[in-house]
């Protein structure tokens, strides 16, 4: 009898402690997910009740909306350029900083600082200036003898790349994670490899990369999801419009415009579901391929 009442007790206590999450999950996650799915089959402008239209929103997205196709292209370019570049920089710098040298703490701070402030409106505003026609970038080009009056932000060819540059500039948090991973690799492994005659390139591909691969996987997934969600810089740099020629119309920004500027809540909900499916598929794909390149020591393979 005593054991049973104790266990019941544990159940009650467990739910008391986790109640904030469970309630929040039901109210702010589960209920919205279900509503969003329902809205995606309706026409809904907030003022009148949602009107059921079946699959029409989904159909319109892919047959009737050039902007949507464009924003998908823009987003894919953004994600597939910024995430790998960001991780590559993060790893390269982490390897450079994985040593004992004077001032290493200051360097670490300097590389991390952009990540810390990167999501802020202030930095997006600063970026519009740096890549404007009279901005820091052109001015710096002038110093090395290249005269340029291009507004990199304003030109359709380069606008997206300024956003990508902004994202790559913020490699600091991934770098810190890599750095922590690198410090966990025992120096003896490198020494043993050196004795066996492995050069720096060998050591990188045979020791560093495999041992870091679980961290790379984790970073890759979290950063990919985050990159799909990018909103603030695209909004600020294009003043909420996604220009020039829709070349910075990231998916989240287009969804925002459809929902909160044109009040097409049904259509925007359908967009959200397509996004969820795309992100889900890409995450799954990364997981599936990871068994070929992620090395888990627990498996015992050498």
């Amino acid at each position: 009898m005593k054991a049973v009442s104790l266990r019941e007790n544990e159940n009650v206590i467990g739910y008391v402690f986790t109640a904030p999450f469970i309630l929040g999950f039901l109210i702010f996650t589960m209920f919205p997910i279900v509503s969003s799915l329902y809205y995606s089959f309706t026409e809904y402008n907030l003022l009148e009740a949602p009107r059921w239209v079946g699959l029409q929103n989904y159909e319109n997205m892919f047959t009737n909306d050039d902007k949507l196709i464009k924003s998908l292209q823009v987003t894919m370019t953004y994600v597939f350029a910024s995430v790998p570049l960001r991780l590559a920089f993060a790893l390269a710098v982490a390897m450079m900083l994985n040593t004992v040298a004077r001032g290493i703490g200051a360097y670490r701070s300097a590389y991390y600082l952009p990540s810390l402030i990167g999501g802020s409106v202030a930095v997006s505003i600063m970026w519009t200036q740096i890549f404007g026609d009279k901005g820091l970038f052109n001015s710096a080009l002038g110093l090395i003898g290249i005269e340029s009056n291009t507004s990199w932000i304003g030109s359709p060819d380069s606008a997206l790349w300024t956003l990508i540059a902004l994202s790559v500039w913020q490699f600091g948090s991934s770098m810190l994670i890599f750095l922590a991973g690198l410090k966990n690799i025992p120096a003896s492994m490198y020494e043993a490899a050196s004795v066996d005659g492995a050069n720096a390139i060998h050591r990188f591909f045979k020791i560093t990369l495999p041992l870091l691969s679980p961290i790379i996987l984790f970073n890759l997934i979290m950063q990919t999801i985050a990159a799909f969600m990018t909103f603030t810089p695209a909004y600020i740099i294009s003043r909420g419009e996604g220009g020039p020629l829709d070349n910075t119309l990231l998916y989240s920004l287009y969804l925002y415009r459809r929902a909160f500027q044109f009040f097409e809540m049904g259509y925007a909900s359908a967009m959200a579901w397509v996004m969820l499916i795309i992100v889900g598929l890409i995450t799954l794909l990364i997981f599936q391929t990871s068994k070929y390149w992620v090395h888990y020591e627990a498996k015992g393979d050498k």
Partner: protein
Amino acid sequence: MAKPKSSSQALSFKRLKPFLYHLIVGGLALAMIYPILWLASSSLKPNDEIFANAYSLIPSTLDFSNYASGWKGFAGTTFGTFFKNSFIIVIFSTIGAVASSALVAYGFARINFKFKNFWFACVMMTMMLPHDVTVIPQYVMFAKLGWLSSFKPLIVPNFFATPFFIFLIMQFIRTIPPELDEAAKMDGCSKYGIFFKVVVPLIVPALVTSTIFSFYWRWDDFINPLLYLNRPELYPVSLALKLFLDAESINNWGGMFAMATLSLLPIVIVFFVFQKYIVEGISTSGLK
């Protein structure tokens, strides 16, 4: 790395190596923070000087008038109001997020209850769920509750725990030996007593880390204020900065730079004060 050919060559290479290291790593570090320094120095330049020799970091004269003109804000609402709004939102949402997450983390880390694994899977799922999926129904919900144009949609949801903080605090609780809980239980402490008297004092570092991250996220948050606040006197700093861009042609670059610089100041100060916690938080939990 390189095999020395003669001892003198080896010596000079040994001397050169740290020099080269600092040149490359230091140079790159400077390039990384140059834009930030440039923003700060531009805020002190007279308006006509900002775009002449834009690369320069040194203003010809230190001109604080940009700060005065930026601080005036828009239509009678000064940046004093915007900063106050930011602090109100940040402080209340951070208290809510950290306190509720600590409770939940303890529940998941130390108590065995029915369907625990299922609920924990929900924590992980929420952490990875794109915000875009929930934003519209949440907006509709808050609109129906009559919460638009108030701080409530920005503050209240934080009291229902944040998956990332649950995760971070759980990791920390796991490092506390369970024998400690047992000992307290022997002394007649209830689970609630154990949590408040034994666990909370021990997880202070994790609570500090969560507080800092919550501060950063709320301070920088742009989309939620953009959705829910429509009167400038309710704007936080992040949203107020946007107002500089809304004018047909921007004429107060200096004021905008000055306020942008000011808006970064709390973040940078917190970073330098709590550097240790921040770096540890990122390294162990893997998130910004």
